[in-house]
């Protein structure tokens, strides 16, 4: 019987050089779907929660969902799951492009990489064949150059790699695939670097994945495709302007964090908006595998055609650093891809450094010719490069992220982070629900673990009052649980502007042979969310890690349309724990039993190393 799973995992041990195919437990896969859910389950069962993230004991899993590589719209995502060196907790970092689909076509649902190579290596996969090869000649190369070199050897391959930042174990290091798509968050690139693993190239001869019920999947896919084509966000807003279309709306409600969240309205935001990007820089749309939306931006950068910035880096390099120089933002974003850096945490760390410079903690001498001044286009470009290169002591410190940087100067409260990971581009003081999802995200500060911006700002699927706290805990839970499913299926979160739980359940059932209702599917998402939370508990997470920076609860927004607002997380967090069936940030035994996590509940907690 076919399902959309290949039924095969590839385990690669870089210490011993062993490469072994393993059978995928299909029942287990269905219980956790795939991708983010199944990756966390594997990591949990292999007792990774307590290891040092940058030691050879950590494992890094590149894992598809059942929809990856199918004909389902946006079915091209893969997930990198590991223990994060940035947060010390679960990392699951998602990316598009074509790499995940290629891996699926090559016959693998996942690659589990363990151990550490003695010297730089890469893994080459050509359908069933896999080999570990020397990467000595590639070590030190930036992304584009590396990919061009490797494509000479493997012309039909899709390449996933780290840049110099990952090699130097920057805690902000990303994994880049297909030149400009990134599994960006939580320092997953440093885990690859710690294993001396530079790249994974994948060549595949297949182009089709056989689902459980081909006819049914064709029909459900067609229904979903229709909904995406008829939806105003997925048929016009995102294709025309990409994610940067959000700059103006978020700024116009006064929730656009500015100068490291000291303010929340950026006077010249339209100079860095999606509309301006389109008018002056866009060449064409960029599409991931099987994507009918095409939110990617392809830009002309001084005559060179490259991947353009998303909303998040435009905000983080822009308003958050006080910069309205769009060409400089484009260049800084390109440098993130080239050096392999997270394009959210990197600029947010530069913003924190700018506040430290403003307040006299960082001196001109530390800056070595490039002052960390608000509004400096030169500073955002040069300090991104310097962080990628480990240029000097300050750059090395910044490459560990804003929390460790600010802690070094004795002012960790200037780090706008949760669980040591930088928060994204929406001020939770003026949008109450998103603050719950920031505080309780299992991977630290993040907007795509429960995107309540949809109802609270964009009015989708229905409009909620952004200032109100009523019902927000329940909304947060539902969004977090559904997102866990989408991430585990191998689909893009942006499909959820047009699709809901009933559509995702129908797709999954047709592809894998499950018989889930929408409610069942949400329960699977809840199971995944709770499993991540137990992983974090084993990793040493404490209840106080579910907190927002003091600035959001103690410093009201000083001006603009959300003037005077503060986060009410002290009220919403107990509501949220109640809705989740958690006490002091962790699930009760009753909750775990209800979700079929008895096995995990009974596992004895191992002392944190």
């Amino acid at each position, binding site marked *: 019987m076919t399902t959309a799973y290949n039924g095969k995992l590839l385990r690669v041990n870089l210490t011993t050089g062993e490469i072994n195919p393993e059978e995928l437990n299909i029942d287990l896969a269905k219980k956790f779907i795939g991708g983010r859910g199944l990756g966390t389950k594997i990591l949990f069962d292999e007792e990774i929660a307590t290891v040092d993230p940058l030691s050879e004991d950590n494992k890094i899993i590149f894992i598809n969902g059942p929809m990856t590589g199918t004909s389902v719209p946006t079915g091209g995502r893969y997930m990198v799951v590991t223990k994060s060196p940035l947060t010390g907790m679960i990392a699951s970092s998602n990316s598009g492009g074509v790499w995940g689909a290629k891996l699926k076509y090559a016959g693998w649902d996942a690659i589990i990489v363990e151990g550490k190579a003695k010297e730089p290596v890469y893994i080459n996969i050509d359908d069933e064949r896999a080999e570990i090869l020397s990467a000595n000649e590639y070590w030190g190369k930036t992304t584009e150059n590396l990919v061009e070199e490797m494509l000479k050897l493997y012309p039909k391959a899709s390449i996933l790699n780290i840049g110099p930042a990952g090699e130097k174990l920057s805690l902000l290091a990303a994994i880049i695939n297909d030149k400009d798509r990134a599994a960006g968050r939580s320092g997953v690139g440093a885990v690859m670097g710690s294993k001396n693993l530079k790249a994974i190239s994948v060549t595949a001869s297949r182009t089709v994945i056989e689902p459980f019920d081909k006819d049914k999947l064709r029909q459900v896919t067609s229904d979903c495709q229709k909904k995406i084509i008829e939806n105003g966000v997925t048929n016009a*807003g*995102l294709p025309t302007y*990409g994610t940067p279309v*959000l700059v*103006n*709306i978020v700024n116009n*409600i006064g929730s656009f964090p500015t100068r490291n969240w000291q303010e929340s309205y950026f006077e010249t935001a339209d100079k860095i908006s999606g509309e301006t990007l389109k008018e002056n820089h866009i060449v064409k749309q960029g599409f991931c595998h099987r994507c009918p939306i095409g939110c990617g931006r392809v830009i002309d950068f001084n005559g060179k055609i490259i991947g353009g910035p998303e909303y998040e880096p435009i905000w983080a390099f822009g308003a958050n650093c006080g910069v309205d120089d769009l060409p400089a933002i484009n260049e800084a974003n390109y440098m993130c891809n080239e050096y392999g850096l997270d394009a959210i945490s990197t600029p947010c760390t530069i913003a924190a450094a700018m506040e430290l410079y403003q307040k006299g903690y960082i001196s001109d001498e530390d800056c070595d010719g490039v002052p960390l001044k608000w509004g400096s286009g030169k500073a955002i470009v040069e300090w991104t490069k310097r962080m990628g290169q480990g240029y000097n002591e300050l750059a090395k410190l910044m490459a560990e992220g804003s929390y460790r940087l600010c802690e070094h100067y004795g002012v960790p409260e200037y780090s706008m982070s949760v669980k040591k990971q930088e928060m994204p581009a929406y001020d939770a003081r003026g949008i109450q629900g998103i603050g719950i999802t920031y505080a309780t995200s299992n991977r630290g500060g993040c907007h795509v673990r429960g995107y309540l911006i949809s109802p609270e*700002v964009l009015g989708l699927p229905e409009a909620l009052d952004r200032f109100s706290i009523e019902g927000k805990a329940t909304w947060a839970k539902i969004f977090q649980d559904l997102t866990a499913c989408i991430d585990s299926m191998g689909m893009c979160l942006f499909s959820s502007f047009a699709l809901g739980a009933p559509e995702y359940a129908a797709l999954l059932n047709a592809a894998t042979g499950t018989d889930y209702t929408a409610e069942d599917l949400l329960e699977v998402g809840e199971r995944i969310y709770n499993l991540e939370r137990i992983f974090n508990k084993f990793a040493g997470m404490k209840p106080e890690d579910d907190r927002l920076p003091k600035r959001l609860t103690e410093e009201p927004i000083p001006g603009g349309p959300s003037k005077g607002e503060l986060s009410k997380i002290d009220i919403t967090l107990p509501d949220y724990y109640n809705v989740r069936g958690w006490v002091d940030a962790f699930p009760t035994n009753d909750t775990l039993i209800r979700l079929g996590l008895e096995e995990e509940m009974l596992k004895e907690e191992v002392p944190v190393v």
Partner: protein
Amino acid sequence: MIEIRLFATLRDGRDKIIKLDSNSISLAGDVLKHLSISPENVAIYLINGKHSNLDAPIKDGDVIAIFPPIGGG
């Protein structure tokens, strides 16, 4: 005088910022009529940065921001 800011596809064939005499406008929906924008093309309507519906009253000095369906992440 009221200030109207248009965004995304609503800028097609129109200025980004339009200033109107407030005497001719009493409700939010009047602005759409004045600019020949169909209500079904409007997803978000802000008055002074606050989400509003088309029945909301408009007063002199208001800043209005109008968006078609948009999304991102």
